[in-house]
């Protein structure tokens, strides 16, 4: 379990995250939602150990701040919102980088994992392409494949591993949004855990087990999607009067991911 309690983050003197508590259980997709600038990404960075924070912060019962970067890297992998690279690496070379955390694997096994990870994000045949020549959505999926290889086994030495995904589907088409969210579900089904910063509330309602709704650096409401997504919460957090599960006026087409047959 990843556990934070009374987590606060101060950036340039400003309190960005204030006394936030969250728990991400293995076997569950935990989604963080909220308006732009409410501190979702900062929370994610603090939980990943990337930026300084105060309060209690543990992964599988161990203090995140006392763990070595390499020890952390075998327990959790992080997908940033976007990644620009400085040099012309191929897709295969980038994905293989995720496998360099020092776990002893044979060359053949590493190669197989890289290929499986690319297949999992629907990028078979892309290994020889240059990263910089791919579209934004393809680049995002290459990075996800790299992140997957870093903690390929959802349970390592009896301990669950965690995928931390910052807007994993933000630049994907609707089919790949579903593919990637399903991939996150499968990772949980095999014993790992997922924390994802999300913007699409429909996808969140469909795939998340646990939801945290944030506003101005604080948790407003947390729980199962059915309990969190209420008309009142939508108005309070997003400042938007709307009806959950309301239907649009007749004649306006609307498409919900829930109707997809996977």
């Amino acid at each position, binding site marked *: 379990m990843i556990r934070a309690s009374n987590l606060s983050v101060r950036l340039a003197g400003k309190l960005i995250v204030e006394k936030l508590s969250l728990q991400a259980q293995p076997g569950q997709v935990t989604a963080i939602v909220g308006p732009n600038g409410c501190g979702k990404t900062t929370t994610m960075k603090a939980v990943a150990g990337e930026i300084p924070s105060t309060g209690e912060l543990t992964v599988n019962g161990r203090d995140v701040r006392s763990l070595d970067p390499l020890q952390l890297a075998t327990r959790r992998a992080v997908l*940033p919102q976007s990644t620009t690279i400085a040099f012309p690496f191929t897709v295969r070379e980038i994905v293989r980088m995720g496998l360099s955390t020092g776990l002893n694997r044979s060359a053949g096994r590493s190669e197989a994992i890289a290929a499986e990870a690319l297949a999992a994000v629907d990028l078979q045949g892309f290994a020889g392409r240059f990263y910089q020549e791919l579209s934004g959505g393809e680049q995002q999926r290459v990075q996800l494949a790299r992140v997957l290889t870093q903690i390929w086994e959802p349970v390592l030495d009896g301990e669950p591993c965690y995928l931390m995904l910052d807007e994993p589907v933000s630049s994907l088409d609707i089919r790949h949004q579903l593919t990637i969210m399903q991939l996150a579900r499968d990772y949980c089904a095999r014993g790992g855990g997922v924390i994802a910063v999300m913007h699409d509330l429909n996808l969140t309602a469909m795939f998340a087990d646990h939801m945290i709704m944030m506003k101005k650096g604080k948790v407003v409401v947390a729980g199962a999607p059915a309990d969190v997504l209420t008309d009142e919460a939508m108005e309070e957090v997003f400042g938007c009067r709307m009806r959950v599960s309301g239907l649009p006026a007749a004649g306006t087409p609307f498409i919900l991911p829930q109707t997809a047959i996977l």
Partner: protein
Amino acid sequence: MSLSDAGKPGARGMMLSSLRAAAAGDRAGLARLVVAALVVLTLLALLLSTATGASNASAIDVVVSLLTGEQSSVLSQRDRIIVFDIRLPRALLGLLIGAALAVSGAVMQGLFRNPLADPGLIGISSGAALGAVLMIVLGGTLPMGLLGFFGGFALPIAAFAGGLITTLLLYRVATRHGQTSVATMLLAGIAVAALTGAITGVLIYMADDRQLRDVTFWNLGSLAGSTWAKVLTAGPIILISLTVLPFLSRGLNAITLGEATAFHMGVKVQKLKNIAVVSVAAAVGASVAVSGGIAFVGIVVPHILRMVIGPDHRYLLPASALLGGILLLAADMVARTIVAPAELPIGIITALAGAPFFLWVLLRGRTSAGL
């Protein structure tokens, strides 16, 4: 890059299979072949540069003499002195300095995530130039005893110290709460270069004609006056750095994706920065101290190699070391034969040959995968 032994079926098969793997995004096999070819070329360059020059000792005589040592009587006494005491230290110094400049360039580019970065960005070159000019112009005012103690080493020591002090100063400015911002370092580097340039300018204004000439030639770089003493003082510093830097390869690869991502992947980013900056400052400081300013090797060599074998630092660093050494030896051979018995400053050759070639590479590479 074709291998000298590519005619054998085994070697050709190996080349074909690594080319096929490269097409599938795996350039490791190709990179290993290139490194192997560069090792052969390095040995060739070393041999050629000890065998060419004003004396007419043949290459074979030199090889025999090198292999059998000083006792051999293949070479005349005079040629033996030329080969062992003049050409060999000069060739070794050329290899070491070329390797140091190219590897340092590759490491800086990786650390700054910018293919145009070079050790000049962290103040080494400008600081070393200031140190050297200080010594050339004001060295005469030092007490004779002190100057006599350092002898011919006064200038290199001043340059080395100038480079190191400037780099450490810059590093202090860019480091806050134990975190070094490479962006701040880049900007501070520009400011520091302007400042040292201004002080150097004041010194040049004060200098007399002979000192001006010395300053100009120092800036153009040269391997002339290479001695075993210089090899034995600069060599170990460069060799230690060249041994340490390849250990940073995995981290430098990860930093390509950003510092935060490198941390997520388990890299101790700040420790890597410390080691990289100190090693590069030492290697380049030692190089510049004995050879003066040699431009272009640090940018051109890693760039060309990245286009052939890719940016993976595990192969890029050793390949850069070898190709840097080869190119500097080649440039030095041109420098000392083209206007023989006089010689051109080597910096002129590296820039004169390097710049048009680099432009050609850029024009050609725009359509392919290069940057």
